[in-house]
């Protein structure tokens, strides 16, 4: 199957691998509302048949599979005691959406948050709309729909109260969990009104009156804590790995060590001797590439995970390593570099870059390397499945609940409506848990065994059999005129594409990868050319938090530092000069421009906003301050996930290249926001992830196999190496500034800001990550 000709198989980011547009079905949900009921008393989710029209919500949300559902009866229920239950239909992996989205509903419906409970939605996109929690889009896609849902509920409650009192609806007002008739001083609580409110027609979206933001109690304040806070601190929060069912068996799987390899034979006799091991069996695998289908291998089934792991250690397995057995990282890097030094597919062209480079007074060339990275979510993949006959139920930490439902149904050959997907908390996501292979493995094993099965990945499984961040060489040639002005910019990006995980033979990066910092480069330069030379993948490539923005921001912002150096300018001044005049960047020369799935006119590249975050971080972060000897300041700015962000790092390079990050300042403009406290948390965390990948992040291959396996040889930053202080500066939103991404934009600018700071401290320019031992001498 060629996915490029089967766009219906694609979801979310995946859809942008396709050639044609996918039609969004405006599904009538009337039928599915029949018989729908949320447990526990009254419900706005009563089977009312006059569902308002599908909301024409003008963002990328509508282009996602199953679009957006705006219906209070689906998301809100009110019990007679007044407890309001709001459905969270997106996955919680640490960003706070499980709190933020219900909070938006509560704000608009005038619910008192202390009387709100959050209920996690099952994977059901027909009912809830798209559930792919990725691409930093939960708030940007759902701020308005959630406000509309809350406003609808409020309006129904007010209508019910007005009817009961026999007064015009204009005289009543919902406030703090009750409806008040000011003229007579009467008031009724939401719980008492619930049953009547459910009988009210759902108002049309056009008729809704949204709250004036100046009256917000919760939104934009950052005073509400995440709903799982207490459970997390007492050990009650339930992640996928924590699910236990009666009669459940525990499984670990030996998978082919090389991507595309397969099982030849196995001997489980020794494994069966391990205390607690009950069975050794083959797991079906799919040939590479096959999207998220399991790799196959040999499963060891036991009464507990420890026994299963010990049993797996005792397995004797013969593998056929297949077509990628020669994948080797040193040679591959050379291949990428060679490709980057030759012309490639032109993906953006303005002016005449060849002539401009030829005529330039000076040409600066930078070649930047960034290796494969593994997600290493603290919770390695784990899933529980209970398959009985033609019914399947899954419990797992899933970023893509709806997609998983489709994939489980297809993999087991059963109808989608027979598949129940329970989404647990995610112990980290970062894109890894957008791929449901681990849930499919559990489903296949449970089907065979006829009992509930938990599949647990070990850390080594996670590092060696995941979907890695790509590996890339980014080559930039910048031409300067005799006045030191940049007049030419050629950027070649060579990296195996995520599309290769879906379709054999994909050698060019997909539009969504090219749109992450390559073709959307915002600098005001007369001659620009972006190229994408081809290269084949030899392992499974997948989304990793921030995706291609990581290597692109590293390259582009390092080059800014190099240009500042070449022209003896201040880094920030150079950066602002390159960003140029305040304007909307004209990207009309880019064919198939991908703007994070958003219409370009709603979310254009506005250089005024990019300039402002640079200026804000420079002011708040004390750009230009004098620092002790051995220390340096570096700056970088990048737009990604339609947010604008700039970071300053103060680093000390000590003996043997020991790095101490004294201070990090980041300014973010993410438009209208819901919870500034969680934005701060995301940006603090992004600095840690950025520092991890800059200092240590590297997965390498030899003989087709990943050479790392755990935190000893794939280290991440620990608290004793963390920045001493991280400050986050959030730009107040402009009027009507739509919300944009938060989860991912913080990562890309960190590494180049650090590298620019290291240059300022030492005069050494690091062009290949990780830094590793490069500063030791």
């Amino acid at each position, binding site marked *: 199957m060629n996915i490029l000709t089967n766009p219906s198989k694609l979801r979310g980011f995946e859809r942008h691998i396709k050639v044609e547009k996918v039609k969004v079905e405006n599904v009538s949900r009337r039928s599915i509302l029949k018989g729908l009921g949320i447990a526990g008393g009254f419900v706005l989710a009563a089977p009312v048949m006059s569902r308002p029209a599908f909301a024409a919500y003008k963002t990328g949300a509508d282009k996602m599979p199953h679009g957006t559902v705006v219906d209070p009866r689906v998301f809100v229920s009110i019990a007679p005691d007044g407890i309001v239950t709001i459905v969270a239909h997106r996955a919680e992996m640490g960003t*706070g959406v499980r709190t933020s989205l219900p909070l938006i509903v509560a704000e608009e419906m005038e619910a008192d948050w202390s009387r709100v409970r959050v209920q996690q939605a099952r994977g059901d996109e027909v009912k809830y709309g798209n559930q792919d929690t990725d691409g930093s889009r939960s708030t940007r896609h759902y701020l308005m729909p959630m406000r509309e849902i809350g406003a609808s509920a409020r309006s129904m409650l007010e209508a019910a109260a007005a009817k009961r009192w026999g007064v015009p609806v204009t005289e009543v007002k919902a406030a703090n969990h009750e409806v008040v008739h000011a003229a007579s001083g009467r008031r009724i609580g939401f719980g008492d009104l619930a049953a009547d409110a459910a009988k009210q027609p759902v108002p049309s979206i056009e008729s809704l009156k949204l709250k004036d933001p100046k009256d917000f109690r919760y939104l934009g304040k950052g005073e509400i804590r995440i709903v799982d806070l207490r459970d997390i*601190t*007492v*050990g*009650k929060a339930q992640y996928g790995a924590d699910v*236990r069912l009666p009669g459940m068996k525990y499984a670990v799987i030996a998978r082919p060590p090389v991507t595309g390899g397969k099982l030849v034979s196995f001997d489980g006799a020794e494994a069966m001797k391990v205390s607690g091991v009950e069975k050794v069996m083959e797991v079906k695998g799919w040939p590479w590439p096959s999207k998220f289908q399991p790799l196959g291998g040999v499963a060891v089934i036991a*009464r507990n995970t*420890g026994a299963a792991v010990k049993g797996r250690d005792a397995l004797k397995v013969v593998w056929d390593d297949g077509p990628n057995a020669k994948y080797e990282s040193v040679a591959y890097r050379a291949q990428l570099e060679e490709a980057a030094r030759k012309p490639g597919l032109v993906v953006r062209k303005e002016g005449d870059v060849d002539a401009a480079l030829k005529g330039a007074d000076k040409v600066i060339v930078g070649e930047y390397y960034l290796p494969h990275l593994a997600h290493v979510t603290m919770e390695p993949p784990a899933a529980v499945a209970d398959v009985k006959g033609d019914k399947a139920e899954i419990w797992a930490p899933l970023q893509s609940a709806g997609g998983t439902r489709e994939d489980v149904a297809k993999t087991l050959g059963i109808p989608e409506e027979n598949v129940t997907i329970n989404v647990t*908390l995610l112990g980290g996501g970062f894109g890894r848990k957008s791929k449901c292979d681990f849930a499919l493995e559990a489903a296949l094993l449970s089907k065979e065994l006829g009992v509930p099965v938990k599949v647990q990945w070990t850390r080594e499984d996670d590092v060696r059999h995941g979907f890695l961040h790509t590996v890339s060489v980014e080559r930039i040639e910048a031409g300067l005129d005799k006045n030191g002005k940049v007049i030419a910019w050629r950027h070649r990006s060579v990296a195996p594409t995520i599309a290769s995980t879906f379709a054999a033979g994909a050698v060019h990066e997909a539009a969504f990868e090219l749109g992450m910092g390559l073709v959307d480069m915002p600098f005001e330069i007369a001659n620009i050319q972006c190229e994408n030379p081809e290269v084949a993948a030899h392992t499974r490539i997948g989304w990793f938090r921030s995706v291609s923005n990581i290597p692109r921001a590293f390259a582009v912002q390092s080059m800014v530092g190099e240009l500042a150096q070449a022209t003896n300018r201040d880094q920030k001044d150079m950066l602002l000069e390159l960003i140029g005049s305040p304007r909307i960047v004209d990207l009309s020369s880019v064919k198939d421009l991908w703007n994070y799935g958003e219409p370009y006119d709603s979310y254009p590249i506005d250089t005024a906003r990019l300039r402002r975050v640079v200026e804000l971080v420079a002011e708040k972060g004390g750009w230009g301050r004098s620092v002790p000897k051995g220390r340096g300041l570096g700056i970088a700015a990048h737009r990604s996930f339609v947010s604008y962000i700039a970071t300053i790092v103060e680093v000390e390079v000590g003996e043997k290249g020991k790095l101490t990050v004294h201070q990090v300042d980041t300014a973010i403009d993410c438009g209208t926001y819901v919870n500034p406290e969680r934005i701060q948390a995301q940006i603090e965390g992004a600095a840690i992830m950025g520092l991890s990948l800059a200092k240590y992040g590297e997965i390498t291959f030899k003989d087709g196999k990943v050479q790392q396996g755990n935190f000893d040889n794939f280290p991440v930053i620990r608290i004793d190496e963390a920045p001493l202080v991280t400050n986050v500066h959030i730009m107040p939103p402009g009027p009507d500034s739509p919300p944009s991404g938060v989860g991912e934009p913080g990562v890309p600018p960190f590494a180049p800001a650090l590298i620019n700071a290291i240059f300022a401290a030492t005069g050494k320019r690091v062009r290949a990550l990780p830094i590793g031992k490069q500063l030791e001498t």
Partner: protein
Amino acid sequence: MIKVKINSQEQNWDGDPDLSLLWYLRDEAGLTGAKFGCGQALCGACTVLVDRQAVRACITSVSDVVGREVTTIEGLHPTGDHPVQKAWRDANVPQCGYCQAGQIMQAAALLIQNPKPSRDQIREAMAGNICRCGTYQRIENAVHLASTGV
């Protein structure tokens, strides 16, 4: 048959005495607060207290804790209001939360040994616990808060 004491409760285990304490707790005893993160004492997600000292349950066998007191996050405080737990909430530490039970147990062990650790001592004592979300600044602040009240 082995007898172990978890959160003040005696339990019997008739399976493999070499089974790691982590999988015993999670899969056999149903105490899933301690998490699996690496299996090699590299990340600290499985940290529990054994006789009031922080121990990585993933490399400790069930037989190792015979005759000793094991405390997991579930048993740290009867109402979940240990000063460290409260500080974790006051400082809004968690993001995904998966590593935090291990972090809290490590911090609780630190404060048993050193009730007023310096910032450097906090960073040193907590360096065995990885948080991939990157909540370290808040972890440091929360431990400081738990020990000083500010």
